[in-house]
């Protein structure tokens, strides 16, 4: 009897959410403890799963397949490859930290935050589910259902007067993308039925022998677009990014961590797993448009980030820029590029997560203000807080020795071998990153101490516990990224095989035409 690890990891938080929701609101403290315990158990389960994962084994491990809706060939099918595993690990690590960080945030809510913690647990179940799904329909179900808890987390438990509008914008943007994807999902089913076996099982659909191999070129491009638009909105990519700053700015920082740190990764993960592997031909055809959009995202996100006056919005815009790097790496179609992109997704979760969490601590100390100009000289009164903020910020600008550096470097290497010009353009983003992060730090943490911040407390024990693990992994994987790469690389290699792309031969002075050939087929 094998343990259904993934089902366990999905079911535990779901059950936990139910328990938390049923605890009466007078005992909100108990509800929080249950929520924290539940997330820690999930973390342990995911940790045990990671230890049992065999990087040299088959691509998908811990697989379970059960028929769900026979009529439409829908299965409850889960399984993880290295990429999915690292992202599930990221989710499982971030959620308890968010719970810890949000411990006191919702004291004033009328249910004293009980509902908020239940929603976090619901969201955790769906986040793990969406990465674990190996059935397109199941993936779609999680992909769409996930919106609802986030919608309530922003709209009901968010901050600021704009939160209703922001949550609405978030939901409608995502729904629109999701519904277009629904057409593509139905299209996938229709074509698989036409090929003789109507199914949503990912494994049966992909590959040269798969059920989608016979789809004609035009149809495949439309289907690709259906998926891609949804993922681009989720990621978010310029020009469909406008919901993110609004949503992040109106979120509690904990919500923002999960929103930007994990949820948005579903977009890039979906591009890698679904857009590329289901429609390799169409993906190759779309390389240039996507690369151009990625470059625009990188530079636009960075430039706009510089001009932000609200730190949550600033961090959100930096993410638009970072996601540009991820999509660039994915669509470079080289193994370094994709490994880098996959690693980037995880590292970005750590560094942005840390930034949002610390920003949250600042906000609770300053009457709920996220405006950068309301701060100054924080490092004199709260040195630990300022220090962790600096480390997180430096990791966000990919300082060597911190984990995002490795992934950004891999993306550049992988892109440069085939698309040298875009790679060079993308480096502008790195320079701008230094500007927006350091300038924000300078304005908020250095200089004379603001009068009303004079009595500001440094990080409490609970807050240190919420941030320290992130800082630790940022440094650990910055110095020694090999464990992550060992898990990710086989999955990337198999992805490359699946889409029938190989790395260009390592020749000095690669010309662009040669690179195109490599990516084009």
């Amino acid at each position, binding site marked *: 009897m094998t343990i259904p690890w993934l089902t366990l990891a999905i079911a535990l938080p779901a059950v936990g959410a139910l328990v938390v929701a049923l605890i009466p609101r007078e005992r909100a403290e108990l509800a929080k403890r249950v929520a924290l315990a539940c997330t820690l158990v999930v973390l342990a389960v995911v940790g045990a799963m990671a230890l049992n994962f065999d990087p040299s084994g088959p691509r998908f491990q811990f697989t379970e397949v059960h028929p769900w*809706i026979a*009529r439409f060939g829908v299965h409850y099918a889960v399984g993880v490859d290295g990429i999915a595993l690292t992202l599930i690990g990221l989710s499982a690590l971030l959620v308890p930290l968010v719970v810890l960080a949000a411990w006191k945030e919702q004291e004033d809510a009328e249910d004293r935050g009980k509902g908020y913690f239940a929603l976090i647990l619901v969201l955790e179940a769906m986040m793990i589910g969406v990465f674990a799904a190996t059935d397109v329909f199941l993936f779609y179900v999680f992909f769409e259902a996930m919106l609802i808890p986030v*919608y309530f987390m922003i709209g009901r438990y968010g901050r600021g007067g704009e939160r209703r509008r922001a949550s609405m914008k978030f939901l409608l943007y995502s*729904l629109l993308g999701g*519904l*277009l994807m629904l*057409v593509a999902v139905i299209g996938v089913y229709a074509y698989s039925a*036409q090929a003789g076996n109507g199914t949503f099982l990912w494994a049966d659909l992909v590959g040269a022998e798969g059920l989608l191999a016979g789809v004609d070129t035009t149809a495949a491009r439309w289907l690709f677009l259906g998926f891609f638009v949804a993922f681009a909105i989720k990621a978010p990519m310029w020009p469909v990014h406008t919901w993110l700053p609004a949503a992040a700015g109106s979120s509690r920082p904990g919500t923002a961590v999960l929103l930007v740190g994990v949820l948005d990764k579903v977009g890039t993960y979906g591009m890698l797993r679904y857009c590329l592997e289901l429609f390799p031909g169409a993906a190759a055809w779309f390389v240039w448009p996507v690369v151009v959009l990625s470059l625009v995202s990188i530079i636009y996100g960075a430039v706009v980030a510089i001009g932000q006056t609200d730190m949550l919005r600033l961090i959100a815009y930096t993410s638009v820029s970072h996601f540009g790097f991820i999509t660039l790496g994915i669509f470079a179609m080289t193994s370094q590029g994709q490994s880098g992109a996959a690693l980037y997704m995880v590292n970005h979760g750590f560094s942005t997560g840390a930034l949002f969490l610390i920003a949250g601590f600042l906000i609770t100390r300053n009457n709920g203000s996220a405006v950068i100009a309301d701060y100054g000289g924080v490092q004199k009164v709260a040195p630990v807080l300022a220090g962790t903020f600096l480390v997180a910020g430096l990791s966000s600008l990919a300082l060597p020795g911190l984990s995002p550096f490795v992934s950004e470097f891999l993306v550049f290497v992988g892109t440069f071998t085939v698309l040298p010009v875009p790679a060079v353009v993308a480096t502008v983003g790195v320079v701008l990153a230094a500007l927006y992060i350091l300038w924000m730090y300078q304005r908020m943490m250095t200089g004379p101490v603001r009068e009303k911040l004079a009595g500001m407390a440094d990080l409490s024990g609970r807050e240190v516990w919420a941030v320290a693990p992130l800082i630790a992994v940022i440094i650990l994987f910055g110095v020694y990224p090999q464990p992550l790469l060992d898990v990710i690389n086989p999955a990337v290699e198999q992805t490359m095989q699946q889409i029938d792309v190989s790395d260009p031969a390592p020749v000095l002075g690669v010309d662009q035409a040669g690179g195109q050939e490599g990516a084009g087929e």
Partner: protein
Amino acid sequence: MIPLGLPEPTAPALTTQAPDLDYWLLSPLLVVFAVGVVGVLVEAFVDRRHRRLTQLVLALAGVGAAFVLTLLQVGSLPEQGAGVGVAFATVAVDRPTLFFQGTILVLAFISLLLIAENRDGESAFAAQAAAVPGSEEERAHVLAGSQHTEVYPLVMFAVLGMQLFPASNDFLTMFIALEVMSLPLYLLCGLARRRRLFSQEAAVKYFLLGAFSSAFFLFGIAMVYGYAGSVHFADVYAAVGAGGAGVIEDGEPLLLIGMALIGVGLLFKVGAVPFHNWKPDVYQGAPTPITALMASCTLVAAFGALLRVFYVAFGASVWEWRPMLWVVAILTMVLAAVIAVTQRDIKRLLAYSSVVHAGFVLTAVVAASADGLAGAMFYLAAYGFTTIGAFAVVTLVRAPEGGAEAGDLAQWAGLARTSPFLAGALGLFLLAFAGIPLTSGFIGKFAVFEAAVAAGATPLVVVGVLSSAVTAFFYVRIIVLMFFAEPAETAPRVLRPGGLTGTVIGVGIAATVLLGVFPGPVLDNLLPQPSAEAAVGTQPSGAGIVPEDMFVR
């Protein structure tokens, strides 16, 4: 009526032949009819104090018994083929019929619970409908605690018509079913206890427009009769297949006009644009329990009839009617969704939402395949439960003064703070309407859109998902209002759900979640399966002829 004036060859046979009716297969209809008749007698002979309870028990027992009989009949259908025609093949008892009838009976049962809700001797219906609104006479009746228990027999007759409507196998039976279904509903619409002028206006509008559409329907029948020489669906189908049966030379225009006119009649009943104008007024004015009945059961019955007419009688002329339904479906989805955005009244909004959902079901009708039939059936059943639940919630939220329902959405602000359960229930129903996964609405949407894509109607589906996004906007806006907004100055008075209404809401929640998470049993066992050759190699262009074995022909 009409056949008398025409030299119809089979008419004499009807009068001379000894009636050979299969009472067993007709029993669900007969039970409901009998209960309706007994209900009338109860009105005459039972003491006023006991009437309501007697009527309610009778009605629930009748509908329940009819449902059990419907279930039993599934077993007595022949293994091969779709089913059998009974009563001179005027009534078709096949699997789609039984599914529609079963669905109608279950939904009617739930609606009856809502209709029966009675708080402090006050039901949703006028004390004395004949009294002038606001008059002394009305006040006297209210004080005396008068009740219209005639509501129950009227509902039973309406349910009888609804059962017969999708089962009819010829146009005249269908017309009779249409009238049997509609006439009690016209009356029921005018019986609201509050805002009686609204209610009476609704009844008159519904009656006039309904009569108008019946006339269209009847005129269409005449045309088709002229073309095919028969009102039997099987004969019409054969005539279309044979290119006109030779009754009239070059009779094709007759068929097309007839098809269009019959289409108008049926599309009026489902409330598709441009025949939807009655819906908002009637849904708003009618007593809410009756609105729930209409929004669920009538819609199921009307779509059942629409499917039977277009799939059985006109099953060989798919290419002729498909463009018409394309246009209607697109208009319905787009216009209704856009107009709904501007609505300020919850019942009007739900009415427009019902119009949009009719558009979604039409995309499945356009498919003209077993998948399309199954998709429409699933959608209607799922939507029925959800919509009754939503209207049940509406009955509980009252204006701060006067006891009328709080129609204005502004009054719903902050409802989640005062009544989290009620707001949560309505939130779930709205998410199901919006088609969020893990609710029945999503599976329904998937089923209808899948059928349409398989039949090559992808553009229609794209329009469908875009208007879905628009509808999501106004559903979500209500959720924003209830959950995120501060309570309004004029906070509504929220009634505690009584046992009956509570049951209705509970059933709605259970059905919405169960059909969303475990739709398999319904999809695999109750609905028609695509035949083997249809599943493999379905051409996206779509076949032009409806598969043979779905209905009795």
